[in-house]
């Protein structure tokens, strides 16, 4: 009979949860208890499934419901008394529970959108440093490392994604990775995951400042030269011809370091090159006031510090499409340059020659550091995958996204490296920002720089907003504790960017240090530890798994150590 087959609780219909707490009495299907207390009072389960307040409110609602006629709304709980939709569960007496999907719940996207969103989020400024990274570790070793790092970080990302699900008895559907860390490691876990997340965010913001100074400088220089018809002499060491590639720091290994591998602060580049134009004194004046490291980082403060102090970042979130356009344009640019420059590859396996680098170099940790940040999405992957329509495909979709990201990085890195004109220039000349290898008069690259400049101006406040929200919630409990708190934080972040742009504008180093540091906690150590702990609690920890994950932790530590020693 149909009556017997009807479920005990009618399934929650999306939209049937009305905004007003008291439902229309005639709509009997919508009136349901919002909580059924677990009746098992024998076991002394340590974790309460519901709060004490919810339990006693449920008791009250039950009782009050008996005091009036069923159609009467006198003693119906008002809106402000009922928990918000995110905190409401419908329990079946048989033990399962499911959440009421609120009216404005998370919209579900098909797989392709999710994959694209992940690709879009992961594609950052590290793409500019991949050729340099490949150069630092050697061409063959670089490719191998890129593939391996991609696989490793993908595995750790999957661990992060699955970590909330292995927590028993607690509903973790709105948990992010810091919450999981807090569950396993207490306040230490919460604070350290916040700290390392901050490292990646602030590192990105510093890189942005350096790059924005760079791009603004080059854009301004291009416009000045174009407007005043100043022709630049070829004092920069580079190739001749229309597809000019330059080597800004010849003989210093491309990033101001000498060959023995000890890092030194990069030579102050104020972009000065000899001008042979008509107004020498004017150009001198221009060069003094429009300097990549001396003045432009400070000009940017006027533009960006006010933007950082906006209360809400939703305005800037509309411009995320610029990032996609920039990356696509970069890929097109790289392809066109490759077509024009042609391939210049020679394989010297372990010895360096005048124009080429060995295939296997000891400086490979620099590439792993860069790649850790390039493949980093572990602090928000849970949130990103929540909107995937078919949750069972999460592993497949994340893997596809990582594959796409890896292919993009590989394409750009390999092409730039391979087509770098080696006979006149040494491969060592490849800059941490590969756009620096093209003169400021290059129109294609000028367009790229302008696009990226504009895109970064819109992403920078978003990053600042993320830092502000996370730090302020942890320290003060609210997102906007006060104008001066936020201003102080913004001044600190901007000062860090300005200092780096002034004294050490080497984005390769900034990326690899911040990447390895935040990767240590959020990519290697915490996911592996948490996985091992959850297996151990279930008694399923076998020695191969334990060995493998301990190895991952060792790799994470070695990654950081390698940045300092190589």
């Amino acid at each position: 009979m149909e009556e017997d087959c009807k479920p005990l609780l009618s399934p929650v219909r999306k939209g049937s949860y009305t905004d007003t707490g008291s439902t229309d009495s005639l709509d009997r299907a919508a009136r349901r208890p919002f909580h059924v207390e677990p009746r098992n009072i024998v076991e002394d389960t340590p974790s309460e499934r519901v709060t004490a307040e919810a339990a006693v409110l449920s008791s009250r609602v039950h009782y009050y419901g008996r005091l009036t006629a069923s159609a009467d709304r006198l003693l119906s709980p008002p809106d402000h008394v009922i928990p918000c939709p995110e905190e409401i569960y419908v329990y079946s007496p048989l033990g399962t529970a499911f959440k009421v999907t609120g009216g404005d719940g998370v919209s579900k996207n098909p797989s392709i959108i999710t994959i694209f969103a992940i690709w879009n989020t992961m594609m950052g400024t590290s793409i500019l440093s991949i050729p340099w990274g490949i150069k630092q570790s050697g061409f063959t070793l670089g490719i191998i490392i890129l593939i391996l790092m991609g696989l490793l970080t993908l595995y750790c990302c999957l661990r992060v994604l699955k970590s909330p699900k292995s927590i028993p008895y607690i509903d973790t559907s709105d948990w992010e990775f810091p919450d999981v860390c807090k569950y396993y490691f207490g306040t230490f876990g919460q604070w350290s995951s916040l700290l390392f997340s901050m490292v990646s965010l602030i590192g990105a913001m510093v890189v942005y400042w350096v790059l924005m100074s760079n791009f603004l400088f080059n854009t301004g220089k291009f416009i000045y030269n174009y407007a005043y018809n100043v022709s630049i002499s070829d004092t920069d060491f580079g190739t001749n011809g229309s597809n000019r590639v330059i080597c800004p720091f010849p003989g210093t290994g491309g990033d101001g370091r000498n060959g023995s591998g000890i890092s030194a602060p990069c030579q102050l580049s104020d972009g000065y090159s000899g001008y042979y134009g008509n107004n020498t004194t004017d150009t001198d004046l221009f060069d003094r006031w429009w300097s990549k490291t001396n003045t432009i980082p400070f000009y940017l403060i006027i533009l960006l510090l006010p933007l950082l102090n906006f209360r809400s970042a939703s305005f800037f979130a509309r411009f995320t499409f610029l990032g996609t356009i920039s990356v696509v344009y970069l890929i097109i640019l790289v392809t066109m340059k490759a077509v024009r420059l042609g391939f210049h590859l020679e394989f010297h396996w372990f010895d360096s020659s005048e124009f080429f680098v060995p295939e296997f170099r000891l400086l490979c940790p620099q590439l792993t550091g860069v790649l850790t940040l390039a493949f980093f999405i572990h602090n928000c992957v849970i949130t990103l995958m929540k909107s995937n329509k078919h949750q069972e495909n999460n592993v497949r979709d994340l893997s596809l996204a990582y594959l796409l990201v890896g292919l993009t990085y590989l394409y750009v890195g390999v092409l730039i490296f391979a087509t770098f004109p080696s006979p006149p220039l040494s491969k060592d000349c490849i800059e941490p920002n590969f756009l620096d290898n093209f003169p400021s008069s290059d129109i294609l690259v000028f367009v790229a720089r302008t696009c990226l400049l504009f895109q970064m101006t819109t992403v920078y406040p978003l990053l600042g907003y993320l830092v502000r929200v996370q730090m302020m919630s942890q320290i003060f409990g609210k997102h906007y504790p006060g104008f001066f708190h936020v201003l102080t934080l913004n001044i600190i972040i901007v000062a860090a960017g300005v200092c780096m742009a002034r004294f050490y504008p080497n984005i390769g180093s900034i990326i690899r240090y911040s990447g390895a540091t935040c990767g240590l906690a959020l990519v290697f150590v915490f996911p592996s530890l948490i996985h091992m702990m959850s297996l151990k609690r279930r008694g399923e920890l076998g020695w191969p798994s334990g060995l493998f994950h301990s190895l991952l932790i060792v790799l994470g530590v070695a990654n950081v150590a390698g940045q300092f020693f190589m």
Partner: protein
Amino acid sequence: GMSSTAMKKKVLLMGKSGSGKTSMRSIIFANYIARDTRRLGATIDVEHSHVRFLGNLVLNLWDCGGQDTFMENYFTSQRDNIFRNVEVLIYVFDVESRELEKDMHYYQSCLEAILQNSPDAKVFCLVHKMDLVQEDQRDLIFKEREEDLRRLSRPLACTCFRTSIWDETLYKAWSSIVYQLIPNVQQLETNLRNFAQIIEADEVLLFERATFLVISHYQCKEQRDAHRFEKISNIIKQFKLSCSKLAASFQSMEVRNSNFAAFIDVFTSNTYVMVIMSDPSIPSAATLINIRNARKHFEKLERVDGPKHSLHMRMR
């Protein structure tokens, strides 16, 4: 001779129309609210409920300040009738009221009448509907009102509570009121503790009979649920409502499983007792005998130091 109604002491539940008295009364006393009475708006007449609250107190529910002329009539012509033989005055203020001056004016009128007719009455003020105030402002607003009320109430002493039917404050406020109305409550508590220790109970609760408000309790160790008193009260009141539909009345209940046994039974004329034993090996009969014997002892306690008015009646 005097009619029995005139001799019974009253609990006056007063307050502006719409301040939540009827709902409060319904919740505390488990009275079904018929729709009709409320559709008429203000409580036109006094609502007598012949509930034996704390012995033989009668609950009278009054609206104050509905229609001014109507209220003036009652206050002038019926005043002495209303305010004589009052044991307790519970005045309900709506925290959201926009007419604070008027509310205070009516309150003061009631106090004057109390001073004249029942100077020994205890006065309680409930600042109600506190759930409508933002959480971080509740303490502040209640403190302000409390100061005002204390000042206005002199020379009478009033005890103020902040309440809302949507949290535990209503139950706690009424429990405190009942606690203050029981004449020998400290002695009851001591005896209750002895009783509990003798029968080796985990927890013993003493409820007021009509409302199942907890008068006193003893527990031998920390309990997890701080809201258990209200929950038990709600459960039993619901059960009483179900019983009343069958024209039955609730007397006692035993709940037991492999881990514990709980007994709810009539105790004295004003109270119920709930005994919780965590040693299920002790047979029910033993505990029930203990409760029965204790009952006699506690009845004696109540009769000796009974409510003052019964002594007065005898003497007059």
